[in-house]
């Protein structure tokens, strides 16, 4: 007889891993692979390949539960497929798009509490403030860390965009192979998708509030307005001395696709826009050619 799984699968950066861990369950941020053997989400026109791959990978996991968020409409709708198409209990976390009001911040906090009740139903236990604070302290290292400047001949590049699937990490290899250096990973699965460091004083006073605040301040293209994304980028690009931006998004990802033109107008650096359908193996050859040309221009 196998042990019942204690793993909670999610992919959205607004799901606090510490909150799951504090409930005695194992958080696992799933970075999906594009798979052809669909289990719950078919390959259909208009469906974001990342959302599809997450749904299928999550369904195939032996997880105790799956957490999906409303960060984008595609994921919100993929939840329908997961909730109906798998036996794994699935939870939809309402992540507000607005962030400037107390009501939005409170809603996120209340949603975390609701997630907590879901975790308890899956066999977790409701943590005390001390337990939560202890878990948060143990996982301080999960936060975004400061970047140390590097001085060599390679061209410092920022990769900006939504999440990347495992296979699409090849983007980084291609940049480095072409004479570039990843000075900033501003993708959702990179540095940009990490919460800020916890404030130790606030962590002690009210850990859940601090947890919510740290995660809710992650910048993203989908926030309204998304000005904080540009503030964050401005700061990071300055610190890292980036000389060019590689912008990546998946086809049908409206939130990020719409930002490409705006970023080009705003950033004052050369920008290479790349899209991917998440499936096509021949993408690599095309990617290599485009990245090389971009890096040659910057060198």
């Amino acid at each position, binding site marked *: 007889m196998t042990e019942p799984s204690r793993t909670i699968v999610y992919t959205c950066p607004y799901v606090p891993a510490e909150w799951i861990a504090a409930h005695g369950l194992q958080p696992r941020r799933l970075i999906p692979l594009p798979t052809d053997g669909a289990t719950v*989400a*078919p390959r*259909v*026109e*208009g*469906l*974001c390949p990342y959302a599809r791959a997450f749904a299928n990978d999550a369904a195939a996991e032996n997880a105790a539960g799956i957490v999906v968020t*409303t960060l*984008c*409409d*595609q994921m*919100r*709708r*993929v*939840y*329908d*497929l997961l*909730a*109906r198409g798998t036996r794994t209990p699935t939870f*939809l976390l*309402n992540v*507000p*798009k*607005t962030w400037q*009001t107390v*009501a*939005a911040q409170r*809603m996120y906090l*209340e949603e975390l509490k*609701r997630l907590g*009740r879901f975790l308890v139903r899956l066999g977790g236990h409701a943590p005390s403030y001390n337990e939560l604070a202890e878990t948060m302290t143990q996982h301080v290292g999960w936060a975004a860390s400061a970047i140390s400047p590097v001085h060599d001949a390679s061209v410092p590049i920022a990769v900006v965009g939504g999440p990347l699937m495992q296979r699409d990490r090849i983007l980084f290899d291609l940049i480095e192979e072409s004479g570039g250096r990843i000075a900033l990973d501003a993708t959702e699965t990179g540095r940009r998708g990490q919460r800020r460091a916890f404030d130790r004083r606030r962590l002690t006073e009210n850990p859940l509030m601090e947890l919510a605040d740290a995660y809710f301040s992650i910048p993203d*293209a*989908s926030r*309204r*307005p*998304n000005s904080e994304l540009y503030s964050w980028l401005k700061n990071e690009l300055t610190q890292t001395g980036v000389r060019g931006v590689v912008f990546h998004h998946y*086809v*049908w*990802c*409206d*939130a990020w*696709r*719409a*930002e*490409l*033109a*705006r970023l*080009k107008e705003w950033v004052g650096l050369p920008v290479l826009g790349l899209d991917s359908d998440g499936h096509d193996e021949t993408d690599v050859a095309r990617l290599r050619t485009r990245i090389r040309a971009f890096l040659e221009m910057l060198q």
Partner: protein
Amino acid sequence: MNAEPRKINLEQWDREYARLRAAGMTEPVYGGPLSRHVADGDTRLLKLRYDNSPAALRLWNFLLTEEDRLRAARDDGKKLVGAMKDLGTVPVMAYSLDNLVAFYPDGAWWIPCVMELNTGLLQIADSLGIDESFCPVRAMLGAFITEAHFPLPDLLTCSVGATCDDFSAIAQRLNGLGHPILWWEIPHRRPAENGEQAVTLPGGFSAPQSQIDFVRSELSRVKAALEELASRSLDDDTLAAGIAKANLVRELLAQLRHLAFTAPLCPMPALEMLIAEMLAIHFCSDQDETILVLTDLLAEVTRRVAAGTGHLPADAARIFWVNPVADLQAMNLLEDCGGRMCGTEYLFAHALDPIPTTIPTMEALAQMALADPMVGSAFDRAARIVADIRRFGAEAVIVSRIPGASHCALEGEIIGQVVRETYGLPVLEIEVPSITDATQATLRTRLEALVETVKDRRER
């Protein structure tokens, strides 16, 4: 004065117009022959076929003169509110204040159709990085840039949260171009959990009271902005009166839909019914006139039903249509293929339900906003569609995909699945771009095949 129901083209309408005028037809100030709008660039009108009643003429003239009305309202000192991604909530508040006029900038999605891509709005959107992978509502961006289709509003509101990514991204692009937007949050509707108070919303969906409280607080922010813009207070009595007027529009539409979808003969074509339904969400910039236009239309439909006249043969296939079409000609095409509209869900079924009047006004509006079929699960939406299929006796369902719309990738399959499981009805999923000319032969074949399937099923 009223002739037998017929579908006529624009040229025929000009002759019919002359006849009606000679017979003493009176018109509102925006009246006139329909063909004059072609000179303004509305060239798609040349390819549509229309109902021949004076009521339909009034409806079309009302629709096609909205820009004039907005400019006149501004000249009269009224303030303009652009209520984006808002299917019938903020306009109800705005129209409660008599010096505000709300309109629906998203309605620009029909401009590429009506003006047959001659305005360059989509090219402007392209140049701003909003290409054809987005829904045709991207035409709105171009309309803001050119200022040629509506005056720039004094206040822009936009709901976000459980809305489609296309529109949210387009609105953000607009914001990035320097147009301030008051964003308000609509959360994904979910059922109440253990220990939470569940509330049945208008239309039958359910949500926890906490979500209603949240939306009410969001709408209070919008209300405060409207009050500031209007320089007057929107008190409960004033808002209640505004809700009563909005309910009158909804009641007229409910009667109209019931008669149009259930009469033995189709008393009003699908095209005019689509335009009429759209009035529910924004009143085409004049709520009082909307009531008069719909009253006229309802009188005509009632007269036709009583007289046993109508369009289309009695055995026309009874079709339920899901999602609005970017090309209005698709409505003509359905009828050309032997289909008859018997039920619709154009993304705003909730805006056709009466707003509750027995609860506090802001609570009622919050409930309405959460009753939006698009803010919940696609299975919820499918359940509502299934209930309406039964109500109107539809024999088949067409799910019309909106090109590039984020909600269309998956929900068509879910709706189709629920319809098939519940009633075993045939379901056809099609995509309707802004101009269907290039795909019309294929569309026609598919619609004809559906109609044939419906008729075959009757014989079995």
